[in-house]
């Protein structure tokens, strides 16, 4: 539709080309990069790309890529990236952030037409990955990456793909187990039906024998493959002297299986193999439901995936790209605009303007001059700078955080799920009843004793009980997902319901770093800026890359910029001087603009404006809190102990104090280590802590806390290791999420009651020694289904009550 509009848009990427127009035939491109991609595709007969979707392309990066991927020639890097090297062919999986439409799929899967060295490429659209198999004799890894970059699909290369590989394997084996169990269940049920319909003893013995034999055959893989995990987990649990939910399940499974085999072999009866395989099948289904994973998200990232893989090293006249692992103390490195400083270094040349917001929580960029120390993790804003490395990457100020023991322990030892708590008593009670029934019959009628004993164990097998948690929490997980909170797993959801203390970060969590707005404050006794002056300023800041300039630009609004820029000069650390439409405009520090600095009483950062040598006033940068933060803090404060931990200074103390319980609940100027220690000390005092943060400086606290939630503007971008990623849009829903998680625990308790009721009915039959396979075949699925229906209905109902979007279908919601 945009094609019919008067504005010309780029044939390749669809951006407006008002400033530059490059025409090739009838097609118009916005930049040389786009044109080159088109020409490359045209030369290779791949113009179908443009038929599949309108303006499918993305603008390829302009800056020189010659040296950028040099590190890919390094064999140690290659070893980590290449999946399997069979002879000269190798496979590599890249994450492509730009992958967005069907044309992208088509082009990426047609790579072999451009580069014959590529044998095969395959896209996974949901994960935004492309798996490329190529011939190493014909084309190098670096060439492949450069090709992708040159057509606008620059891969995001990181060395953290191993985790996904194991996830894939366990998921695959779960499918296999479910398939086998389902197959066994259906066929055994089919072969058991004649017996149930005809009644015991009515079927010719030759059939009973045949059916029994087939049933055993079908049940063997269900027991030894599909159900094996439960047996193993129960064994490990007993070995560590605890009783988890799998113990009563394992007891039930073993009793069911062995008694059935015994009955069939000794021709006592048809056995319970249908109940047995149905039980395993349903349990596995519960597990599948529980293991909802967000394929595109990663909850285990550390600083390595935030940092670049390589950096430009300057040795003499030469610039070469080296992997970070080979960066040593004393190396000279070059950091360009928007690149991250990978190790603590000293500035040698250039104007450093470092954005530490992600690392320390400071909201403003810091100016650095040569000789200053720059901590790793800062992002350079502006022109390129040259640095000398003074510390190893892993020993830098920030990265040391990952050496603390919070990152060493595997999994949480503090976690005991509700189900596991209950199963201890449950197992004891069940074994108690079974023994009692067995003893009773031993006295009254010894023939029934073993029957009654095993029947109790069979019917008490907590299938419904075991399904209550995964189905409830699985539903909660999905409801959260629909409302843009992505939790790592169901254990994290359960943990969420138990917290009593909430720690909040300020910068990037309560505030929106991208939306800092600027308001103009005129010099005393002067009028606000006129429309013409605003135009002048807007024209100037439009040409500056300084983050504050951009904020001023954004705050001026929809005024038309008609100024003609004649001269533009940027003084690093001071400001900009420019000539627009015959006026000289100075924008920058108070001294630079011609004031003496006295007119600012604001403690925040300010940008002063002078037009034709006359100081007009200054722009004040207001920190923008996220929408609804007051409401959020009030609601959370009622139920939980709220604490604020910020790496920033205490300028905002006055604004925030009313929401917290006094001065002591606000912590400012906290280092990443302080935050981690604070969480630890709270936990030592018996608190269950939730940390809500966003940056690398929160990484320690996020990891240490019982539940760590990361707030992110874009859930697919980097976020430190945590238990849940919350989309910034869902920020104000946080109190509801917490309430919902505690309601979900009530739902689990209620469904425990339901399953106990069924158990009681079954036990009624069992202790009398009259539990027939038929009753068990009806009772077991019935109890499981009631629990599943109840939890699904209840979780959706409560979600609706709380004003959260319910979960009704099986559609994934993160695509």
């Amino acid at each position: 539709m945009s094609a019919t509009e008067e504005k010309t848009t780029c044939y390749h990427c669809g951006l407006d080309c008002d400033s530059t127009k490059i025409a090739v035939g009838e097609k118009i491109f916005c930049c040389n990069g786009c044109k080159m991609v088109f020409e490359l595709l045209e030369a290779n007969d791949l113009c179908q790309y443009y038929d599949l979707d309108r303006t499918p392309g993305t603008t390829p990066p302009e800056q020189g890529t010659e040296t950028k991927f040099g590190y890919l020639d390094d064999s140690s890097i290659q070893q980590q990236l290449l999946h399997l090297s069979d002879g000269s062919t190798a496979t590599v999986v890249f994450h492509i952030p730009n992958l967005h439409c069907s044309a992208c799929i088509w082009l990426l899967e047609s790579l072999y037409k451009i580069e014959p060295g590529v044998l095969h490429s395959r896209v996974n659209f949901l994960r935004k990955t492309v798996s490329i198999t190529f011939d190493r004799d014909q084309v190098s890894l670096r060439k492949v990456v450069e090709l992708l970059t040159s057509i606008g699909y620059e891969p995001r290369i990181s060395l953290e793909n191993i985790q996904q590989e194991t996830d894939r394997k366990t998921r695959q084996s779960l499918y296999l187990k479910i398939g086998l169990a389902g197959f066994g269940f259906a066929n055994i049920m089919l072969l058991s039906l004649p017996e149930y319909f005809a009644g015991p003893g009515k079927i010719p013995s030759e059939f009973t024998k045949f059916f029994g034999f087939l049933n055993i055959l079908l049940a063997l893989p269900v027991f030894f493959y599909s159900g094996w995990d439960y047996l193993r987990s129960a064994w490990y649990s007993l070995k560590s002297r605890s009783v988890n939910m799998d113990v009563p399940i394992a007891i039930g499974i073993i009793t069911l299986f062995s008694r059935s085999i015994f009955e069939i072999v000794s021709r006592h009866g048809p056995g319970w193999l249908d109940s047995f395989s149905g039980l395993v099948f349903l349990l596995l289904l519960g597990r599948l439901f529980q293991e909802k994973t967000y394929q595109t998200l990663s909850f285990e990232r550390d600083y390595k995936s935030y940092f670049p893989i390589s950096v430009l090293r300057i040795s003499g006249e030469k610039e070469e790209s080296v992997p970070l692992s080979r960066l040593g103390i004393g190396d000279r490195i070059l950091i360009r605009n928007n690149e991250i400083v990978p190790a603590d270094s000293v500035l040698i040349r250039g104007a450093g303007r470092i954005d530490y917001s992600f690392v320390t929580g400071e909201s403003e960029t810091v100016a650095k001059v040569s000789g200053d120390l720059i901590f790793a993790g800062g992002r350079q804003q502006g022109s390129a700078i040259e640095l000398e490395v003074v510390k190893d990457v892993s020993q830098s100020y920030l990265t040391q955080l990952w050496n603390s023991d919070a990152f060493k322990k595997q999994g949480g030892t503090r976690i005991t799920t509700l189900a596991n708590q209950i199963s201890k008593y449950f197992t004891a009670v069940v074994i108690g009843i079974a023994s009692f029934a067995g003893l009773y019959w031993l006295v009254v009628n010894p023939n029934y004793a073993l029957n009654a004993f095993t029947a109790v164990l069979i019917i008490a097998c907590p299938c419904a009980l075991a399904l209550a948690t995964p189905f409830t929490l699985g539903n909660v997980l999905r409801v959260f997902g629909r409302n843009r909170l992505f939790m790592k797993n169901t254990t994290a959801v359960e943990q969420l319901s138990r917290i009593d203390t909430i720690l909040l970060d300020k910068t990037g969590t309560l505030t929106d770093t991208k939306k800092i707005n600027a308001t103009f404050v005129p010099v005393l006794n002067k009028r606000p800026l006129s429309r013409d002056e605003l135009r002048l300023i807007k024209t100037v800041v439009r040409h500056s890359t300084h983050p504050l300039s951009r904020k001023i630009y954004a705050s001026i609004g929809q005024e038309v910029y008609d100024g003609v820029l004649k001269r533009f000069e940027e003084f690093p650390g001071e400001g900009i001087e420019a000539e627009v439409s015959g006026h000289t405009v100075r924008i920058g520090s108070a001294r630079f603009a011609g004031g003496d600095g006295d007119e600012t009483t604001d403690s925040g950062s300010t940008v002063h404006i002078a037009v034709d040598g006359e100081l007009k006033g200054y722009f004040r940068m207001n920190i923008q809190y996220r929408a609804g933060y007051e409401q959020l803090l009030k609601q959370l404060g009622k139920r939980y102990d709220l604490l604020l931990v910020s790496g920033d200074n205490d300028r905002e103390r006055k604004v925030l104090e009313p929401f917290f319980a006094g001065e002591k609940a606000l912590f400012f100027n906290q280092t990443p280590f302080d935050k981690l220690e604070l969480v630890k000390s709270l936990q030592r005092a018996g608190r269950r802590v939730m940390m809500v943060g966003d940056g690398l400086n929160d990484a320690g606290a996020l990891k240490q806390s019982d539940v760590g939630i990361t707030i992110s503007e874009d859930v697919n971008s980097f976020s430190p290791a945590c238990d849940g990623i919350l989309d910034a849009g869902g920020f104000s829903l946080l109190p509801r999420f917490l309430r919902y998680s505690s309601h979900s625990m009530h739902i689990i308790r209620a469904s425990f009651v339901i399953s106990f009721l069924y158990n009681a009915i079954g036990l009624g039959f069992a202790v009398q020694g009259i539990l027939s396979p038929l009753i068990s075949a009806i009772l077991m699925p019935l109890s499981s289904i009631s629990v599943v229906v109840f939890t699904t209905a209840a979780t959706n109902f409560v979600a609706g009550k709380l004003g959260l979007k319910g979960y009704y279908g099986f559609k994934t919601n993160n695509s």
Partner: protein
Amino acid sequence: MNALILLITASLFVAIGFLITFLWAVKSGQFEDTHTPAFRILLDGNGKPVDKNKEQKQGNSNGR
């Protein structure tokens, strides 16, 4: 009677055939990506040898 036993055995073998197909499908990764194939089926000229493709492609780009 024997006919029934024969039939049940035969049907079980058919069922096992489906089971094996399912196991193969899982092993070959068909359940890992359930989204992309839906696009892929609509795209022309995939997975074919380069040479054969040339002529066909010509027709395609002229056609649309």
